[in-house]
């Protein structure tokens, strides 16, 4: 059902864009805000690590992979819904 209408494409791009913005917000939280505030988080402890340190060496990294898997799964669904997947 390749619907090639401009409206379908615009809708597809709107959803893609919103998903991308969501991912970029998460990226900023795990890549910038949490590492910046490691000091505050270090007063807590996780798996024997100071929490802020843990995020910089493991937590944020794992979050990045999960974000990419999630984004790809959502994007595939969006592409399928609009009939523009390969």
């Amino acid at each position, binding site marked *: 059902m*390749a619907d090639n209408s401009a409206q379908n*494409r615009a809708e*597809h*791009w709107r959803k*893609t864009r919103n998903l*991308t913005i969501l*991912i*970029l917000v998460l*990226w900023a939280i*795990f*890549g*910038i805000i949490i*590492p*910046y*505030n*490691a*000091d505050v988080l*270090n007063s807590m*402890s*996780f*798996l*024997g*690590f*100071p929490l*802020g*340190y*843990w995020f*910089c*060496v*493991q937590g*944020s*990294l*794992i979050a*990045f*992979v999960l*974000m*990419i*898997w999630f*984004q*790809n799964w959502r*994007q*595939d669904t969006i*592409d399928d819904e609009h*009939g*523009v*997947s*390969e």
Partner: protein
Amino acid sequence: MEGGFTKNLGKVYGLYTIGFLVFFALMALLERMGASPETIGIGFLLFTIGIYALIGWLSRTAEVDAYYVAGREVPAVYNGMATAADWMSGASFVALAGGVYFGGYPYLGFIVGWTGGYVLVNSLMAPYLRKFGCYTVPDFIGTRYGGNLARLCAVIVLVVASFTYVTAQINATGTIAARTLGVPFEVGVYLGLLGIFICSMLGGMRGVTWTQVAQYIVLIIAYLLPLIWMSNKLGYGIIPHFSYGEGVQRIAELEAQYGLAPAAENVAGVRVLTTPQNSPAGGGWGMVTLAIAMMTGTASLPHILMRYFTTPSVRAARKSVAWSLFFILMLYLSAPALATLTKVNLLDPNLPTSVIGKTIEEVTNIEWVQRWSEVGMLAVADQSGDGIVQLNEFFMRPDIVVLATPEIAGLPYVISGLVAAGGLAAAMSTADGLLLAIANALSHDLYYSIIDPKADTRKRLIVARVLLIFIGLAAAFIASLKLTGILGAVAWAFCFANSGLFFPLVLGVWWKRANAAGAVAGMVVGFGVGAWYLYQVFAGGMEPWMGIDHLRFGIIGMPASLIAMIVVSLLTPAPSQEIQDMVDEVRIPTGKTILGSH
């Protein structure tokens, strides 16, 4: 035959991995039987380079598609592995753990930055560039914005960034080859280059892809095996990743006990530990600016972006970004663990491996201390005159932390040989990718697209190969001059790339109104301002603005690029309807690639 190969990848690389482990066991046996460290080191180097050369020769090709984009038939998982090897350079393998060891919390910016960048690659770049169907990154800039000027600017930024990066990698291959084979550094550099040529010359992107997969397997085994061995020896469990928090806390106690005083007298080329393992107080700004510079740099470096041109589809390109990051994490989750355990080994007086608090005589008699001191990468000096090694009397070059760890932890020499092979694999695979990115941009974008559009396939590939040789030789020459350290040169490459290319690439997809004049302004101003700032801070004696030092000058270059691009785009006419339609077409995965198969 080729179809047969891509269908049997699992079997081929499975056998290869088993073969490598058998070889490792054989070397361990040889060591037991009394073979010298030199024999083992040479054995590892020759065996691995021999395998890479064989793969390079088997992948030789005379087709343009195979040479530039590996025929666009690399499955996502294997492209992920190849990207991981392409990505993890001498800097990640050799220098990162040492940086974290000596630099503490602010250096964790490299770890967050070099992984978080893949979120940007996946959201903003890879799927769209794959849909475009280009051979090189300047190909995208040239076609999206139209005009040879934009293409030429992109080629220049690409060449400067990649060339800065590749000299660091050849430097690393030279260091390892020199130490293991016992030849002078300058000779080691050219030997390393020879290995790199064998992998990339005949097969282009196809040869590089399949050797990079093989190199990833070697480098990840070489990184994890000593770490796991050391962890078990220290009682941190089989997998140290979840338990080394205790080590972090133990180091904090020891730091308080010893004090982190600077050395009474500096020794050239080596340094003492003065930065605490984890003290974020006031360091947040330094940490995040470094992370941001590395993340955006990741998303702008052509040798990484072009790896996603090799997948069969847009969906596979996205999937392969996820796999790339997964394979990269195997090493990045381990680097801080390695730095922590090595530091515990050296500092904790309760362990037999410690050096701090022992007598000078005892320490200078340790075999690995002697070996590394001889080459000037380690020094012990009793500056206080009390006959005891204090923390600020033990000097080390950060780059050797990973290479020396097996000896520090008292592991057999065969592990050191393995680590050398891993470091060589990491540096070679990145150098392959970078040299190919440069040679391809010059042959495809400068020669074929701008100078001689009528050149036939054979001529184009000959030009590409000849350029590869000259660029490689030039890079080896620069590397043999030893101008910069590994981590410094790599950080510069990232900043050149993000200053010049990040916004022109992103806005090419995400802002239809961006036009050729804007893109050229973005590249010229971003790159120019970044380079100017680097020069001023590094050589001109200027006080860095807000603590933005030469390692993160992209933080200055990027906003300049963004502003110039937006202002100039808005002041000049919107791009043609044809180009705007092209952008629409890039945004959906379905349909033909923009460039077709030319």
